[in-house]
């Protein structure tokens, strides 16, 4: 399922800038954006149900913060469970495919086709299979969503090794296992992280959209849907702010893990020195 998202390439990261000075325009845009939003809503008397004021959303977020937090954590746990399940399985399957290529040749066309279908449409099926109130039903859909990008990216990383590296290893009489351990897996790390970063967002989307099709009242997705269908749009936006914060933190944690584990990689070095 060609996901809703794709990784942000390093070149884009470079264009955003790294020093504090580079961030000034971004901070200015944030301030202007929020200010303009507030100004437009006030000036044109836009009704609350269409677009609430940022201050109203902030107020709703603050007054409901403890409920939002517990709902957010409930949904985040579902997303995290699905993420671990889907990504772990994706990496394992990719290792299997890389070790035994004919298997990959037979299955990859289906993986590509699976990429093109809206997998999220299976969310109601998962709810029926595992039970509406069972968190595992949301973990399952989040896991399926995470599986494909992680598997395909990992396989790409494992197989895009420079032939001369393999030849060098073979000239040292290295076995298959040590070629995997010392060449293929380290080489695949940046690709794996590309998949893992995409999967963070997908797992959140899987959990929340799974809850749109039904779930316990303790869940964030159920809250957002209920609030918006009863017309409490400000509260619903506060829920979205919570979902976004959790999504951003999740993504940032994985991006940090990438920094820590792949800082030695040529692509990361180029990123730092250019």
């Amino acid at each position, binding site marked *: 399922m060609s996901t*809703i*998202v794709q990784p942000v390439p390093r070149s884009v990261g470079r264009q955003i800038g790294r020093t504090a000075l580079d961030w000034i325009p971004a901070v200015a845009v944030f301030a202007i954006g929020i200010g303009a939003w507030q100004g437009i809503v006030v000036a044109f008397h836009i009704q609350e149900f269409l677009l609430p004021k940022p201050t109203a959303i902030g107020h709703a977020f603050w007054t409901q913060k403890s409920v939002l937090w517990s709902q957010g954590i409930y949904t985040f746990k579902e997303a995290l469970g699905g993420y671990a399940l889907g990504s772990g399985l994706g990496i394992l399957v990719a290792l299997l495919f890389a070790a035994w290529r004919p298997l990959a040749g037979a299955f990859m066309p289906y993986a590509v*086709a699976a990429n*093109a279908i809206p997998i999220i449409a299976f969310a109601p099926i998962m709810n*029926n299979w595992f039970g509406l109130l069972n968190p595992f039903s949301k973990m399952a859909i989040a896991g399926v969503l995470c599986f494909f990008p992680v598997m395909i990216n990992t396989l790409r990383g494992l197989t895009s090794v420079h032939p001369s590296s393999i030849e060098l290893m073979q000239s040292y009489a290295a076995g298959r296992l040590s070629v995997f351990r010392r060449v293929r897996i380290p080489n695949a790390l940046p690709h794996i992280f590309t998949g893992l970063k995409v999967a*963070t967002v997908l797992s959140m*989307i899987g959990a929340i959209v799974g809850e749109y099709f039904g779930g316990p009242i303790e869940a964030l997705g159920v809250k957002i*849907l209920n609030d918006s269908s009863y017309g409490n749009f400000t509260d*619903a936006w506060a829920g979205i702010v919570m979902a*976004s914060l959790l999504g951003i933190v999740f993504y940032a944690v994985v991006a940090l893990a990438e920094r820590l584990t792949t800082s030695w990689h040529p692509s990361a070095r180029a990123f730092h020195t250019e």
Partner: protein
Amino acid sequence: MSAIAVEPSRRGIVGALPRAAARALLLPLGLAALWGLWEGYRWLGIRGHWTWPFKVNDTNMPHLSKIWHAFGQPLQPDGPPLRHYLWHYALFTGKEALAGFALGAVIGFLLAVVLAHSTLLRRGLLPYIVVSQTVPILAIAPMVVLGLGTKGVNPWVAVAVIAAYLTFFPVAINTLRGLHSPEPRALELMRSYAAGRWKILWRLRVPASLPYVFSALKISATASVIGAIIGETPASLQGGLGYAIVNFNQYYSTQPANLWATIIACALLGITFFLAVVLLERLVLKRAPEHVA
């Protein structure tokens, strides 16, 4: 950079023929294997009374033949068969997705052209474009559909807006990369001919960006279908596949095959969009030296 779109390596026609034949053979084989897995698991599960990870029974795993038959069964007595409804639902959702896809692709492309020419705007806007990706965008779907709906906007337009939102990001980021992809030497050559910004843009940067744009469009094609389907569900917008999913989901315990048939229709719609972009890419990039995945 496309997260997952896997490019086939391009060889000559000679190499392509046996590969096409192998592929044609692989498809029925793979479908047969899927059928065998499904029915095998079902048979074992029902015999062994499996309850983990889910209870295997006629409701949870209907016979595939039953799902196939569901396409031909009428919903009401003497009514048209299900496939008639699904066809019209798919056309409706496809229209929303196509409108959103076109809108998102144009906005994404124009945004990239603007950003490519201004470092200041890039510094100011790009972080938010990137952060927008870490936000579970579909969470906003109910807000947009219900909010615009109460304002008297045609609901399908609101759904198209969501599809557009999912489309624009990959296109904007990839186009920006593509516009910056020409070699410095090529830029110098253009400048030595005294070519202006517009000329460089149209003669050099845009053609160079096309492979990048198409690899984004392939991702966006499915994303727009996802946006349209999910956008329909909160509004209970009648007449689309998202509505059909919600509707048949309520009768799942008695007629599970209908929901499965609807999901198959969703899958086919997604694959159709993807293949349409692939076809367009082949036509437009016929003479491109290589594809950049």
